[in-house]
């Protein structure tokens, strides 16, 4: 039964996913391509590309797309595939949600306790490092262009990067406006 399998596999992916969407990709690939054969490696690569360039958390994007494709491949009609997509997406969410709610409740209640205060005292600086690391790892050829082979793309990317950084940091431009502006710039320049 494809729907039960989707529910089980994506619940598992949800609960074992620490550290955000990118960390989840290898897990999804293992389950969806290697173990269940719901799609080929090529199809999976396409999904990753689509997920990166569409709004929303990458994990949800992957789950939605996989749910849809797997049900279509199993020979069901489109409406069933839409159901499969929604089911897979919700399966990723529900277990971490319950866990998160329990921890949040505890923290909101014990917010001022000494233990909680000293733990968060070191965790807060660490989180800044984690986010900086995520940004550093995204400064790649895929996102900025190869400096040697596509020097024009690379220069434009660096300029857009600095424009976006200064705009949001110093001039407090809203991130949505910044994304729209840079998208427009890409359309005009390239």
């Amino acid at each position: 039964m494809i729907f039960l399998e989707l529910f089980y596999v994506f619940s598992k992916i949800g609960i074992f996913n620490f550290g955000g969407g990118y960390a989840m990709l290898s897990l999804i690939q293992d389950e969806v391509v290697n173990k269940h054969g719901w799609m080929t490696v090529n199809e999976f690569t396409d999904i990753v590309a689509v997920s990166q360039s569409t709004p929303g958390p990458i994990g949800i994007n992957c789950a939605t797309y996989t749910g849809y494709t797997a049900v279509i491949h199993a020979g069901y009609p489109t409406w069933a595939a839409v159901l499969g997509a929604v089911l897979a997406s919700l399966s990723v969410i529900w277990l971490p949600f319950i866990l998160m709610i329990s921890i949040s409740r505890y923290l909101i209640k014990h917010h001022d306790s000494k233990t909680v205060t000293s733990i968060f005292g070191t965790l807060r600086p660490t989180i800044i490092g984690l986010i900086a690391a995520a940004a550093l790892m995204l400064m790649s050829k895929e996102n900025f262009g190869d400096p040697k082979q596509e020097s024009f793309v690379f220069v434009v990317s660096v300029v857009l990067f600095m424009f976006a950084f200064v705009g949001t940091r110093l001039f407090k431009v809203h991130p949505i406006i910044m994304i729209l502006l840079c998208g427009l710039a890409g359309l005009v320049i390239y």
Partner: protein
Amino acid sequence: MSIYTDIFLTFAKIGSFTLGGGYAMVQMMEKEVVEKKQWLSHEEFMDTLVVAQSTPGLFAIDMASHIGLKLKGVRGGIVGALATALPSIVAILLIAMFFQTFKDNVYVEKVFMGVRPCVVALILAPCFGMAKKAKLTKFNWWIPIVAAVLITAFGVSPIWCILIAGVGGFVWGRLKN
């Protein structure tokens, strides 16, 4: 407008404009939830980041459930989590149905070539503002740098950084008292 509608619309908006995954969303979420709506203080927002990062599940969804819970209990949490997920489910479903035309569109690719560096800047920008809010002093300024180096240069999982920092803070607190 009821508070549930407000939670729903705010997180649906955040979900709709987040390209490149959870971290890119931090900047926008802070703007909406802390500065505009004032649902949380800057400090509470950072604590939420910490919890979301150290529990399993999608970062953005975790953030939304925690903030929703804080405002309106479990029902608020459910509304927040679903509102964050909904825009991507709809967008991906449409793309899955019409994928080929989307993928091969030259103009779509051009737009994204401009957007990608912007997304990286959006992730990096809040780090500098956060330094003040995380109460960085001459004693703990090295923590974020060590964490970033461990992850990028040595491939250490962020989970380990969180665990070590949490245990370190706990032990330090005990020793101090």
